[in-house]
């Protein structure tokens, strides 16, 4: 029952994917590992800007950056994507969290209504 953590991670995945440059980077990495320089090539962006995008993808667990040598090639980690591979299931944690909040909210409202009725 680690739904809060699951949802946090899912939010992070979605936030990471809600950007066309980052999706393009992932599409490139799906074809094989690449250095930051190689990843920057197709974009009219500076290296620091690309590095920032890679950092976001790394934090979302979608990209792993190697430690060897100065090239530090990036590669794709598809695990977070597999979790949300069907569009309907990708909404499950979102809806479950919503209904948890609905539950808390109505419980609070019912309690307030009862109290108001008593004091009336």
């Amino acid at each position, binding site marked *: 029952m680690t739904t809060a953590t699951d949802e946090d991670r899912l939010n992070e995945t979605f936030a990471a994917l809600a950007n066309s440059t980052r999706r393009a980077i992932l599409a490139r990495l*799906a074809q094989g590992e690449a250095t930051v320089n190689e990843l920057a090539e197709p974009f009219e962006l500076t290296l620091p800007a690309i590095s920032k995008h890679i950092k976001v993808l790394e934090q979302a667990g979608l990209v792993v950056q190697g430690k060897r040598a100065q090239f530090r090639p990036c590669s794709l980690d598809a695990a977070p*994507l597999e979790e949300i591979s069907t569009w309907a*299931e990708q909404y499950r944690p979102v809806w479950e969290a919503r209904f948890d909040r609905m539950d808390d909210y109505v419980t609070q409202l019912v309690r307030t209504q009862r109290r108001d009725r008593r004091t009336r």
Partner: protein
Amino acid sequence: MTDDSTSQDALVIERRFDAPVELIWQMWTIPEHFKAWYGPDGATIPVAKLDVRVGGTRLVCLEISSPQGAMQMWFTGEYREVIENQRLVYTESISDENGNVASASDAGGPEGHPTTTEVRVELEDLGGHTRMIMTHTGIPGDSPGALGWAMALDKLATHVAALGEQ
């Protein structure tokens, strides 16, 4: 009475609430209540226009804060069935702030993917308690509009899965 249950890709969630059915109905139909629970964590609902009658329009704005700043997403749709305290059915598509549905070309998603989704809420009065069944389905076909990033994501996931099988 299981209309359109042929859709392959559906999400069904059943919940019981310790609250009367009238209150759960209001959770879906009164903007003030709807805003209180609808946004995912880290998101708020600055706008919820809910014209709850058959053929009535809805327009909802979801604002997500991310390290890159606030991101607004707009959704529009139409109410298809409205039976107070029992049944609510509405459609949902990604749109702009004026409720214009995003064009399929904007999304760049694969063909045959649902571009509009349908949310069905069924409520059952259990005498002071409520059973709620929510069904979220894709509407197949080439209706205009798109799931935007969700579609791009699917495309990517499919691509990645295919590579993994090689």
